[in-house]
């Protein structure tokens, strides 16, 4: 009877477990096949998020070719440094980075090297070839032969010098952490400080959200200071009196984009300004009064894409603010602080 029942059961259609297993495996394979075909498990087809979730600034990266007034002169020059910070030009090109200053000619040929004991953060050159370097909270004066002459530290705590500018009697040093500009004589004696909120001259101090705070002396004898959080370039007398400012916050080509721009600037011999922005990486020219003239280079000319936002260290992530210098013939030298290269631009 037992046998009959088992037999019946069998004959009545109970399926062997091996067959079940086969069916399950077949279905699983088919399901897997469908998943590969129809569903994206590897992100190849994108996130599937709707348009409103897409961050798109591409319309601002496009630059009308008619606005580009400059072209690259000569090849791109590799600095040969792991981390570049600042550039200055006087006959030769001085590139500050790592723990040295590399001097190259206009063709990129290495001329000499000045070794430093700390990482430079800014650099400028006097007419006679004297080099003034900022290294964190220290200012170092180096003679044209490359020997250190004097150095002193900024008194303010946590100072980080991001720019130096010179007049015959004064060294101006911009401190991005404290939002102050120090005026020293050449022996290192502090003459005055510009930018305290309480002095009534700095208009609530400077707003410096990123480690970029640039200054330069203009041919009119006034110091120009970037107030990056306000998107302004401000004129100051050497006595620290605020005169006027210009600049507009907009991603449109005539303005300064993002939270805090321009990051750096230089002043051409005729008093016009060359500005550099981060985020929307672009180099532009404004006349001495701040009227937009045209573009030196945009992301395309600087071989810069959004993808280059990927950075593996905080230092790399923070090094997106390029530096700029000019020579007496009006050529513009752009230091790409991410790829550590220099591009020279001249008028078309």
């Amino acid at each position, binding site marked *: 009877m037992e046998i009959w029942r088992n037999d019946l059961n069998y004959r009545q259609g109970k399926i062997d477990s091996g067959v079940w297993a086969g069916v399950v495996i077949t279905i699983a394979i088919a399901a897997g096949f469908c998943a590969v075909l129809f569903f994206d498990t590897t992100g190849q087809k994108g996130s599937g998020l709707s348009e409103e*979730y897409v961050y798109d600034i591409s319309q601002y990266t496009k630059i009308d070719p008619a606005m580009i007034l400059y072209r690259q002169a000569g090849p791109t020059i590799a600095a040969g440094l792991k981390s570049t910070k600042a550039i200055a030009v006087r006959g030769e090109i001085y590139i500050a980075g790592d723990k040295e200053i590399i001097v190259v000619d206009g063709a990129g040929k290495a001329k000499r090297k000045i070794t430093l004991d700390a990482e430079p953060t800014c650099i400028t050159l006097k007419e006679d070839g004297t080099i003034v370097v900022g290294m964190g909270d220290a200012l170092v004066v180096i003679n044209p032969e490359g020997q250190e002459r004097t150095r002193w530290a900024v008194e303010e705590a946590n100072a980080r010098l991001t720019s130096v500018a010179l007049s015959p009697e004064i060294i101006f040093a911009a401190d991005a952490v404290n939002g102050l500009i120090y005026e020293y004589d050449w022996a290192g004696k502090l003459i005055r400080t510009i930018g305290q909120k309480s002095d009534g001259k700095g208009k609530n101090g400077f707003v410096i959200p990123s480690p970029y705070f640039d200054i330069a002396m203009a041919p009119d004898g006034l110091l120009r200071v970037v107030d990056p959080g306000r998107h302004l370039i401000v004129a100051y007398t050497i006595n620290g009196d605020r005169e006027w400012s210009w600049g507009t916050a907009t991603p449109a080509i005539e303005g300064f984009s993002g939270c805090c721009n321009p990051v750096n600037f230089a002043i051409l011999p005729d008093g016009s300004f060359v500005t550099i922005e981060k985020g929307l990486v672009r180099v532009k020219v404004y006349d001495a009064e701040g009227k937009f003239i045209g573009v030196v280079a945009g992301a395309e000319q600087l071989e810069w894409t959004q993808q280059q936002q990927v950075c593996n260290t905080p230092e790399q992530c923070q090094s997106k603010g390029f530096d700029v210098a000019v020579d007496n013939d009006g050529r513009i030298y752009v230091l790409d602080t991410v790829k550590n290269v220099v591009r020279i631009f001249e008028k078309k």
Partner: protein
Amino acid sequence: MDEKKNQYSRRDILRHGVWGACAAGVAGTGAILASKSRGQKYVWQIDPYKCTACGNCATFCVLQESAVKCVHAYAMCGYCDLCTGYYRPEPKELNTAAENQLCPRGAIKRTYVEDPYFEYTIDETKCNGCGKCVMGCTSFGNGSLFLQIRHDRCVGCNECAIAIACPENAIVRVPAEEPYLLKDRR
């Protein structure tokens, strides 16, 4: 001079205080997680220095509402008035009107600190980890907004579904006792 120093110390206290509170919260979550999952040594986390905020974190998590959220390293933030993580590229005005905000879910809160500084905080109940604000912040600002897998929500899949879909291989295994890869001013 003293006033300036005071202002900075106030801001520093504010920044580090809030960041400290955030870190304490995160550490607390880590401790709970560690005690919950005795024997489990590693969890999934996003390396913020590899992540490009591609958007996949919002849609590939097995949870209906992704375990990935935007977090804020206050110590790195510029407290900008024109925050590019908060505002659309061309806001009409710098105010809290929805038309000016970048986040499609209104998950970022802007609070006045002192002229001209503002603080930005994330409402994790609204955030889906889409990364749009992270793109805005890293493109123009200091990169203080970034994405992390929040371990009060993550169910700890054997193979994180986002890790498979991540184009940057940014999802990595980290010790469960230290489950966050935080950005700071190293």
